[in-house]
């Protein structure tokens, strides 16, 4: 299963990549949010894990772009954030699932399973 992880915090990015690869996911991790749509079009991931606050562009704008392209509009998106307001906003913009940081890895894997089955 192909997963695209987008987070500007490199340690989280590394931790997530390690953890997911350990669980047999095929992971592409990027810290530049602007490249998300382009990369998603190219890679066609099964799911995208997206941070809310990214440098330069935020998770909401990325989601809107993803939803406006035919190639990417159906890819499920899980938003991950520690920001207190993020959950409220996420629910309004068509995010499939929201997980508050820090989250349980088992819970993340369960959500991925539900969204990709």
């Amino acid at each position, binding site marked *: 299963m192909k997963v695209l992880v987008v987070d500007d*915090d490199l340690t989280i990015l590394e*931790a997530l990549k390690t*953890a997911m690869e350990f669980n047999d996911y095929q992971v592409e991790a990027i810290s530049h949010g602007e490249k998300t749509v382009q990369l998603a079009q190219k890679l066609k991931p099964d799911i995208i894990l997206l941070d809310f606050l990214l440098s330069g562009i935020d998770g909401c704008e990325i989601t809107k772009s993803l939803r406006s392209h035919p190639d990417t509009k159906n890819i499920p998106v899980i938003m991950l954030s*520690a920001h*207190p307001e993020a959950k409220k906003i996420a629910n309004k913009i068509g995010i499939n699932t929201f997980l508050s*940081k*820090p989250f349980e890895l088992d819970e993340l894997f369960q959500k991925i399973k539900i969204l990709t089955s």
Partner: protein
Amino acid sequence: MVFSSHSKNKIKDDIDPFLPKANITPLIDNINDQIVALDNKGSIIYFNQSAGKTFNLDIYCLGKNFWSLTQKLIGEKVYKNSRKALKNSQNIQFEHYLSIIKRNFLINIYPSHQGLILYFIDIEQSKTNIQEIKKDNHFLKSIIDQMPSGVVVAEAPSGKLIISNRELKNIFGNFPKSTSRIKQYEKWEAYHLDTGKRYESYEWPLARSLLNGETVNWEELKIVKKDGSVGYLRIRSSPIKDKQGNIIAGVAIDNDITKAKLTEDELFKSRVEFEAISKNSPDIILRFDKKFSCLYANPAFKKTTGLSPKKVVGKNIFEIGFPQTVSLYWEEKLKSIFTDGKLDTVEFCLNSRDYQAWLVPEFNRVNQVQSVLSVSRDITGIKEAERKKDEFISMASHELKTPVTTIKVFSHILRKSAAESNYEKFPIYLRKMEDQVNKLNKLVDQLLDVSRIQIGTLELNKRRFSLPKLIKEIKETIQTNNPNHQILTKNIENIILYGDKDRIGEVLINLLSNAIKYSPFSDNVLITTFKTKTHIIVKVIDYGIGIEKQYQDKIFQKLYRIYDSNDKTFPGFGMGLYISSEIIKLHSGQMAVKSKKGRGSTFSFTLPLIKPKTNLDK
């Protein structure tokens, strides 16, 4: 009429030479006074018409004894005086009341060697007049005496006092009536208010009216009263003139204004104090009357709005430079303060700054709100600080959570990979590490909640949820993590509530965790519910160490921690119960504790039931 108008009929022929001759009898006959002439024996020689009428005499009475005819009418006194007059050959004059005809007479008895003449003058009318005058005088005197002002009248030009009333005595003590000259006025002690100099005798208002004809219109004097205390008088004095314009007297009205003056002094003092505070206050001070018109504005108002106090005083709340919405809000608040007399506060925005105003009712003597004083403080700085604090806490929690996330993910991987290898203790240590990370994460959440509660931004995601279902879920989670304790449930009402399910769940978790934490030597914790007409009561009961009474109402306070007898605290920041009780308050419920040291505690909270739909709702 008993006799004819011919007067000669009434005169005996052998008439006495001193009696009126026939040619003057018509004159005497027409006199209104009663005239009777008697001889030495008392026989009637003559009577005029008026006497005939009054004493009931007719022509046949001539020659008859007057005293026998008029015995009842005239009375003994007149007879005796007549004898006396004859005996002494002296005129006698006296007043006598004839009771049968109910009139007073002045009786003159003129004796002669041949007899006497009785001359009656009816003085009834003048007597009545005198009595009327006396009555009037008494009446006037009473009025003057009852007057609440001191009154004094003095003759001109001497200054001799002729009238004074009771109030004047109250002011000056035994007012010296013997004062007969203006010079003597100097014995009364009075001082000029402006210079503090003592009044000379000729400076007294009454003296000036008497001497110069001056009308003194309410002059104020400081005096020394009869008891030695200092008092204040307000005097009006004017001259009384005769038709030619000569001053014949002077009258002075003295009002004792001591009380008013002292009150005025107090008022002046407090006014000076108020103005000093108000003028230098950085807070905006305004006063409004019942019609919401501005009665007062201090200089701070100008600094904020640019409008000088003079321009807004007298203006309505809608005309003092407030935005329409602020004026409407104030009007509503003022209206309710004028009605219920309760102090209130309002927050509002003016020229991009935030203010908080205290609206204070001001009462009159009959306890009605006569005005409302408002003190508005610029709280922009405080608001800004609150906003920054909130921002900081949000940012801090975000920043704290990012590394926590990383640690969690890595420890998770380590635990999973260690389990597959042979490092037996790795999973245990890593589980402990994760527990601590979770605890740290919870603290960050709680800090954020406390901050939100304080600034009123804790939001609830309210929806319908099943209470027994929530209790079951929470019970299972807590039970799994605490296998050494037995969580029991009893009488759980099967009801649907409306509220933030996650937050209510947090409250339950908090209460259950506490119950377990503080029950190291007992196994059971009980959850039970009880339904009233309006509320559901949820109780969490433990049989642990309990809480001393002195701490029981404090444990819901923010950051309150209980110290034991060794000055050690129980673990925790003191945020859990504070947050829980605030969450319950936000749901219009209440939280309470009952506990006995060593016997355990019962924590309970109430939540309102969903009101059944009425016909109106449908």
